[in-house]
């Protein structure tokens, strides 16, 4: 694994077009000790993840241009980014579709701190077992 693609243990990317979701998720994750980056668009999230892979991505299923499921498939299908833990996050009860797309965890909106941190833990544990 190239140096620039090493796992970033405490970096979580929040990819969601909703500013309130970004703000709240950012607050909860920062408070829990993570470094948080933000994206509002699927292609931008893909690009950023390829350049500097975070430890985990919280991706809205309904992301603009490239949705959360497509983003998940692309990242999990690429050996350079397959190690990133992905949590698909949605108002839709789409856990089955998310798991099929390769998501390590699924979370229903709206946000709640405890559920968010548990989903993150589940996703990173899975990733650690694989890598």
């Amino acid at each position: 694994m190239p140096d620039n693609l090493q796992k970033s243990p405490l970096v979580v990317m929040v990819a969601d077009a909703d500013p309130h979701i970004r703000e709240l998720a950012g607050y909860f994750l920062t408070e829990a000790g993570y470094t948080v980056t933000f994206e509002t668009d699927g292609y931008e999230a893909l690009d950023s993840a390829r350049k500097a892979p975070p430890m985990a991505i919280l991706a809205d299923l309904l992301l603009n241009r490239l949705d959360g499921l497509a983003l998940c498939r692309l990242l999990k299908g690429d050996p350079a980014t397959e190690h990133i833990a992905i949590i698909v996050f949605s108002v839709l009860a789409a856990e089955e579709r998310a798991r099929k797309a390769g998501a390590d965890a699924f979370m229903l909106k709206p946000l709640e701190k405890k559920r968010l941190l548990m989903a993150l833990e589940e996703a990173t544990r899975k990733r650690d077992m694989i890598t």
Partner: protein
Amino acid sequence: MSNHEYKCISTGNLQMDEILNGGFPANSINIIMGQPGTGKTIFAEQMLFHHATDGGRPILYLTTLSEPVAKVLSYLQRFSFFDESKVGSVVHYREIGTDLAKNGIGALLPYVKEAIHSIAPKIIVIDSFKALHDLAESPQEMRRILYELTGLLSSFETTVFLVGEYTDEHAQALPEFAIADGILQFLRSTLSTRDERFLRVLKLRGSSYLEGLHGCKITSAGLEIYPRLVTPKVAESYVTEIERVSSGIEGIDKIIGGGFLGGSTTVVAGPTGSGKTTLSLQFALEGIRQKERSLYVNFQENPSQLARLIRSLGADLEEIEAAGFELLYVSPVELQIDSIIVKLFGLIQKNNIKRLVIDSISDFARASSDPDRLHDYLYSLLQHMALKGVTTLLTYETVGNILSGGRDAASISRFSNMSDNILLLGDGRAPDFDRDIRCLKARGTQHDRKAHQFEITDKGIRVL
């Protein structure tokens, strides 16, 4: 197909949950509206104390420009649902009226955001939300703040209640009503010297709630709610039991073809003093003799007066109560049909009542502010009784001769639609008799249509 589970949060009130089909949708934004004194704040407080559990997620109550927190709390302490130990630990009250008045309604957002960060409340109440309109510089500003606020509240896992003194006109015009997932309205009407309280659900997304007006009452335990009685789904196809039920009066049994059909409803109509209560009591007492439990609902004679009447028929109230006779007395001054129906229904179910007397439905009619609603209520009640096989007798006080188109003719005709039998007691105006009885209708029975003379003796009514 979606497998999305519809999650509800309970109101903490079984009857309200029944009306809402489980409760409010979790993570929704709801409006609780009503004029001052209708019970909306008590309802909201009762609900949040139900959810205030030690170790659980907190609850936030924001007061704007309605009442100071100290005043709200001092009155709340009178209710049994209030738990002082939860205030400050689980239920957090914050007064933001001064800040809103000074800095404008935009100050609301940082408060809510800060509360989400610091205590992550599972329920947020804003009381009064309507007061924000008074502080907004323009409708545009109010819309903008509302948009921001709902965006924030929808992104976080919390259920929100916006309480306000809204009217029907506000509900048509104000933007919060468009974004609300649920709208609950509290109403109050004055009938003579008595207030009647009602509530109704105006909107509840994704739920088949119970429509219409539901009675309610404020008690020391909080809000008591009486869901509207609805007609059972199988009502149209009910069949009265073939078994005959004796009226307790041999002559009447003969007139109506051998007794009432089990599960049927009979209206006993007549003027004051014509013998309606005596006939009804004989019917109920016959039930006790037949080992069938009887419920006697009375609005006129208090228990002492009724005990005297029962004694005059050769029975003792205490003895017959021990044998299954139940008396439900409600003063006509305090009569609210919603609460009576709920009580009555509870007793019938709990105690396996087989005979029911309501003496009289004229009192019901006088106590009701809405005759159509009363009619619907009685219709539903009687359909339920028919399905349960409860033989019911309703008395109705008439004025004048209804056979010659007196003023009660229309009412009797209306009750006729919902009853199986009608017995008319005269007051001596029939040409040859002091007292007379005739059967105007006996559904499904070849009955005697003639007027019969009767007398009231120390053993009750005797048909001559």
